[in-house]
Structures are given as structure tokens and as C-alpha cells.
């Protein structure tokens, strides 16, 4: 056990820090709070710049434009990005989830065709997994693909598609065989979103914005060379994407949480409770300290999980405790913000009295979704119960 940076890690960090110092745009603060539709071209340009420095996908193998970074180096990457106050990247799903899946399962042609444009943000990717009747029970999905000559013809509906409005391409899970057990008749298709018959409709969520979309497919023709992995092996392909989702996501979230709890502590020194600053109120001190400690434990759990899975190569089921931990912690953190701010906590960004441009009212509502998206807390607990503790399957 040694938590000091190794010489190699220090070199990685220093090189990145130097690059970020020279390249992080100075005007990000003006863009940060704008709606995603407006800021999206800006984020694409920033990702292109990162790719130019070979920093867009550090975890990817070198031959695909990455740096073959270890998990620790990836953690360093996100820490440095946060420290430099760098914008996020436009093609988050392509870089984090879909690119790695194509690298693992794709043909040479597919890799050559798709990977460079994922890196440069020229083609934005979305994920067509959930359906109105297939959420936690993903394998029961019904969007069907019928083989007609050298094309699949796709019909069905997807929902909760992040980046659906911006997507050029979609990693789509479809049913190619309805006569076998549900996990065994699925296939992953790479679908051009400009194909005739694809309809994207924004889905308005409780925060008022539209982060997600519904996708409708009506006789959409997909050439057979766009099958990812083997026909009817789509469950394994899709699960590997979900593992990337649960494994890597938390590293960058920790820094957001850290910024938020630090900000709450700062606010507590001026916000009044019972006639004095909240920082002097015994109960608020307890709550802030508890939250501060849990944010640190989230970081430590991640570092430990990284060490443990570094040998295995891919994230395993222990990623599930990270997902439960961060999603539930984020809700607790936002509730503490609400208690601290009192009636001001509900003010939206448009209100001139809103604290921090309304990030706390937004955060309170947005984090409500954290224990649902990317695998509900209930599904995560099933995964721990069955795959980690060896209890019999409950479903």
C-alpha cells in the first residue's frame, strides 16, 4: 500500500498540467451555465483540442489514440481537469462507454471507421438501451430487427437516451431472435441517426430541461456490417458497456462533490441560523462534517476499487458499491444544501435572489434521478447480493 504518486504517475500529471495550463479556454465561466444546446459547439471544439494533444481518451490503448492510462492515471486525469476548471467534453458517452465497447468488440473496419471521429467529437454518440417496458429488466427489450438481405430492418422505441438530440450515431440494442431465452436473442447495432425512419423527441424531465430523448424507429434499415460483436451476443456487448458506465463515472463525480461540499462549508460561514452563522450551529456542523467525511470516503472507495480491478482489466461488480455510494451521498449533500439555505434553496437561476445562480435548486431536483439512472439502487443491491455475496438470485 502506497498512496504516493509513482514517478510515472507524477510525470503523467506534470505533462497534463502543463498542457492544461496552456490550453484550457479562459472564457469557460461565461458558458458554464448556458443550456447544453447553446454550449454544445463550444464543448465539441474543446474536445477537438484535447484530442489534438492526445488527451481526449487517456484510458484507450495507444494504437486507438489514447495513452493506455492506468486507472490511477485516469483518476489523476479527472482531478487535473477539475483543478484546471476545464470544460467537460461533448462526446462523453462515445469516449467513456461506446468507444471502449467498439474497441473491445468491433471489427477492424468498424474501429477505423468510428474511433477517430469519436475522439475528435466529429460524430456524437448516444445509447439506445432502455425502453418504456424494459428498464431495470433490460433484457426484456422489444425493439426488433429483422434481417432482409444485407440489412436489418428496425422497429421499436427507446427512452432515456442521453445526448439523443445531438447524436449522429447510436449504440442500439435490438431483438434479433424472439424464440430463444430473452438474453440470448439480442444484438447490438451501430445506427446512423440520419437514417430514414429515425425520430428523436426530447423528453422533458422534472428539472424542466431535456437532457434525454425518446427515439422512435420505423422500418429503419441498418447494414449488416454495422452489427457490433456477434449476432445474438448483444447482451454481453451491452453489459460490458454498462460496466464501463458504473466503473469509471464516479472518478470525475468525486471532484464535483468535493467542490460542492467545500462551497457549502464556505456558505455556512455567512448564512445565518438561529441568529448566528450556520458554521457555529451545532447541528449544521454535524451534518456538514458527516457529508465532508462521506465525500472523502467516496474517493477512498474508488481508489481501492481501482487498485483491486487494475489486475482484472475491466470493472467488476464491486463497482456497484461505488454507484450506490455516490448516488445516495449526492442526494444527502443536496438536502444539506437545502437545509442550509432554507427558503432560498428553492430559487431557480432566473431569480435575482438565487444563491450561486440556482445550482442548489437544480441540484436538489437533478440528483433525485441519480439513484435511478445508470442502474437503480435496487438493481445495484441485487448485483452485490448475487454476484459479490453469492446469495441466490431474487428475480
Amino acid at each position, binding site marked *: *500500500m*502506497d*498512496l*504516493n*504518486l*509513482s514517478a510515472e*504517475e507524477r510525470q503523467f500529471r506534470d505533462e497534463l498540467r502543463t498542457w492544461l495550463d496552456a490550453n484550457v479556454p479562459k472564457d469557460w465561466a461565461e458558458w458554464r451555465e448556458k443550456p447544453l444546446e447553446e454550449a454544445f459547439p463550444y464543448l465539441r471544439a474543446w474536445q477537438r483540442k484535447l484530442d489534438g494533444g492526445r488527451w481526449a481518451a487517456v484510458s484507450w490503448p495507444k494504437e486507438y489514440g489514447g495513452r493506455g492510462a492506468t486507472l*490511477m492515471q485516469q483518476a489523476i486525469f479527472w*482531478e487535473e481537469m477539475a483543478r484546471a476548471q476545464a470544460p467537460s467534453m461533448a462526446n462523453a458517452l462515445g469516449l467513456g462507454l461506446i468507444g471502449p465497447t467498439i474497441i473491445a468488440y468491433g471489427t477492424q473496419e468498424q474501429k477505423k471507421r468510428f474511433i477517430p471521429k469519436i475522439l475528435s467529437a466529429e460524430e456524437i454518440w448516444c445509447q439506445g438501451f432502455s425502453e418504456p417496458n424494459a428498464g431495470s429488466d433490460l433484457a426484456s427489450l422489444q425493439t426488433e430487427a429483422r434481417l432482409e438481405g444485407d440489412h436489418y430492418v428496425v422497429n421499436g422505441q427507446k427512452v432515456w437516451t442521453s445526448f439523443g438530440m445531438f447524436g449522429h450515431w447510436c449504440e442500439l440494442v435490438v431483438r434479433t431472435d424472439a424464440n430463444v431465452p430473452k438474453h440470448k436473442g439480442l444484438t447490438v447495432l451501430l445506427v446512423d441517426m440520419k437514417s430514414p425512419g429515425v425520430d428523436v423527441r426530447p423528453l422533458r424531465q422534472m428539472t424542466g430541461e431535456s437532457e434525454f430523448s425518446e427515439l422512435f424507429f420505423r422500418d429503419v434499415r441498418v447494414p449488416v456490417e454495422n452489427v457490433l460483436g456477434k449476432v445474438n451476443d448483444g447482451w454481453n456487448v451491452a453489459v460490458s458497456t454498462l460496466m464501463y458506465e458504473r466503473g469509471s463515472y464516479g472518478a470525475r463525480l468525486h471532484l464535483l462533490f*468535493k467542490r460542492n*461540499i*467545500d462551497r457549502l*462549508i*464556505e456558505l*455556512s*460561514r455567512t448564512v445565518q441560523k438561529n441568529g448566528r452563522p450556520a*458554521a457555529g450551529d*451545532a447541528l449544521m*456542523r*454535524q451534518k*456538514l*462534517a*458527516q457529508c*465532508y*467525511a*462521506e465525500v*472523502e*470516503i467516496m*474517493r*477512498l*472507495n474508488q*481508489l*481501492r476499487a*481501482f*487498485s*483491486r480491478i487494475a489486475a482484472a482489466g475491466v470493472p467488476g461488480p*464491486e463497482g456497484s*458499491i461505488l454507484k*450506490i*455510494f455516490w448516488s445516495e451521498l449526492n442526494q444527502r449533500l443536496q438536502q444539506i444544501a437545502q437545509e442550509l439555505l432554507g427558503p432560498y434553496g428553492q430559487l431557480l437561476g432566473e431569480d435575482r435572489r438565487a444563491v450561486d445562480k440556482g445550482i442548489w435548486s437544480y441540484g436538489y431536483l437533478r440528483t433525485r434521478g441519480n439513484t435511478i439512472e445508470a442502474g437503480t439502487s*435496487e438493481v*445495484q*443491491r*441485487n448485483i*452485490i*447480493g*448475487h454476484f*459479490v*455475496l*453469492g*446469495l*441466490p*438470485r*431474487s428475480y
Partner: protein
Amino acid sequence: MEFGLNESQLLLKDNARKFFAGECPMEEVRRLMETETAHDPALWSKMVEQGYTGIIFPEECGGIGLGKVELILLMEEAGRALLPGPFFSTVALAGSVLDAVASPEQKKQYLSAICSGEARSTVAILEAEASWNPADVHMSGASGKLTGEKLFVPDAMVADFLIVVARDGVFLVPAGAAGMEVQPMQAMDLTRKVCSVRFSSTPAERLGDTAGLARALDVAATALVAEMVGEMQRTLDVTVEYAKTRKQFGKPIGMFQAVQHQCADMYLETESSRSAAYYAAWALEENAPDAAVAVSIAKMYASDAARTVGNRGIQIQGGMGFTWENDLHLYYKRAKASETSFGDATFHRERIARLVIDSGAASVLGA
């Protein structure tokens, strides 16, 4: 950066697990807890042979000079076995305090006696107010003599010498000193006896001032957290085993999500406590600037988690979990005693608040 254990650390942990499983099975724990002291000289000698009593102490005192991480791996395994007796009090607590505050000559005498296995010891801190803040101690040793009462002193009945925290220094009193009276306190954890110690103009040897005390108590607290982690792990293991085999409605109860999800939460709470304990030990070893915060985070989290894990374990084992015959209540009682030792979660949240809210340094961690 590597948060995993290296080969020699894994070996030490593995050996300790086998040692305690072989030398201190639950029948032995139950036998010892019914004795007055819960101390077994034969078991003690075997631990001395393993080098456990000198694990973190310098070689010139007869120790083997390993680090805090190695100490907590050993404590974790001791916790898994619910090791009774004065090992924690002697090594993690009294040894750490001696190492931190005593003169080289005193270490040669007293710390060597701990390493060699000749002596058992403990530290007396709390008085009637039961405050874990050393600043709240009233007892004075300025006259070279101690008067007053210390409470909740672990394993004082078998201590060959006691270390006493006074407001003006740290003192040492040998067993049987004039005017000293040790009485057992009747508390729920039978595996670790706590005592009251009354002093009446008892002559005491001054070890040093209280400046180094906080760090030594942080080492002890972290060792205790590691022990709690081992206890949680064992509670989780036996609960999962029970949930796999106990059948109701024709199915193993572990198939029901109401049970399975509680097991998942026990796993999350145990692993999170372990992450915090390991980091605190490493931070102490490296003298990291956030070491004190890291210790409080670990003690805070584990204090609540150990109780919660125990609650869930007993709930899942149902009526059987509530019986004297089942071992879970022994772990549950130890968890309660450990929860309040060296400050409970509320105490440590306030300490974290003082360190990160009042200091104005919100970014002590991860810097």
C-alpha cells in the same frame, strides 16, 4: 499509487487470520469472557512468539518495527476473531502512548517489557464527565502524586503498569502502587473488561508532556477502527451464510430482496469502513497533513457502521440472532463499546468540523 496490500502485508494478514482462528476460536472467546479478566497467559505467550506485541515498535526496544498499516491488518484479524483480553490496550494504546511521550530510557524499560511480552498495560484517560478530549482532564500530577478517579479504563486489572493522562502530563503507575485501587465496572462487553481506577496520593513517574498524546491516541483509535472492520466482516460473513441456508416459504431467505439488500448494505458499510481505516493508517504512517482528519473520518464512519451492521445481522438472523447461544450478540456488544471509545461519531463529526470548517481550510483533503 497503490491502495492494495503488498505481498508481505497480505502474508501477515493471512497468517494472523489463521493464527487467531486456530488459537482463539469462539469457544475460547466464550470461555475467557466468563473469567474475571478475559486474559489468558498461554494465548498471550503465543502472540508474543508471533511478534505481535512488538509489531510497530523500534527494534532497539525489541520490537519488529513495522508500520501502522501492518498494525491495523493485525487488528482487523484480531477483530474478526473477537480476540478477548488486553492486546489492544497493551500494544495499540499503551505502547503507542509510550512510544510518543516517554524518554528513551523509559522506552527501554517499559516499551521493551511490552515487546518481550513480560508486561501488559493500558491507558487511563476518562474521568467522571467521560470526555475524550484530553483538554477536559482534571487530574493533576504536578506534585508527583495522583489523586482522583479514572473510569472506563480497559483491562486495568491485568496491567502491570498503568499510563495515566493528567492535565499537566502523562504519568506511569506500576500495579499495586500505594493508594491505587482497581475495580471492575460491569459493562455489556464481556470480552474487554473496563475498570475504574482510584488514586489517593499515589506516587507516579512522569513520562512526558501531553503534546504527543493526540497523535498516539489517533494511532490507537485507528487500530480500534480496524478491529471494528474485522468484527463487521465476520458479522457480514455469518449473516450471508445464514441467509443462504435458512429457508422460509420454501426458499433461502437470502433470495428475498428485503434480506438481500440489507446484506448489500452491510457489505457497503464494511468496505467503506475498511477504506477509511486503511487510509487513516497510511496517513498516520506518512505524517500526511490530513492524518488527524482521516482518523476522525474513519472513527466517525465505523462507529455508526459497526452498530448498523450489527443491527442488520441480528435482524436477518431473526429469533436465533437474539439468543445468547448465537455469537452475534458478542460482536454487537463489542461494537457498542468500541463505538464510544475514543469518541463516537458525534464527537468525531465535531472534531472534523473544527479541523475543516473552523480552520477555513476546506481543502485539507486530496490536496
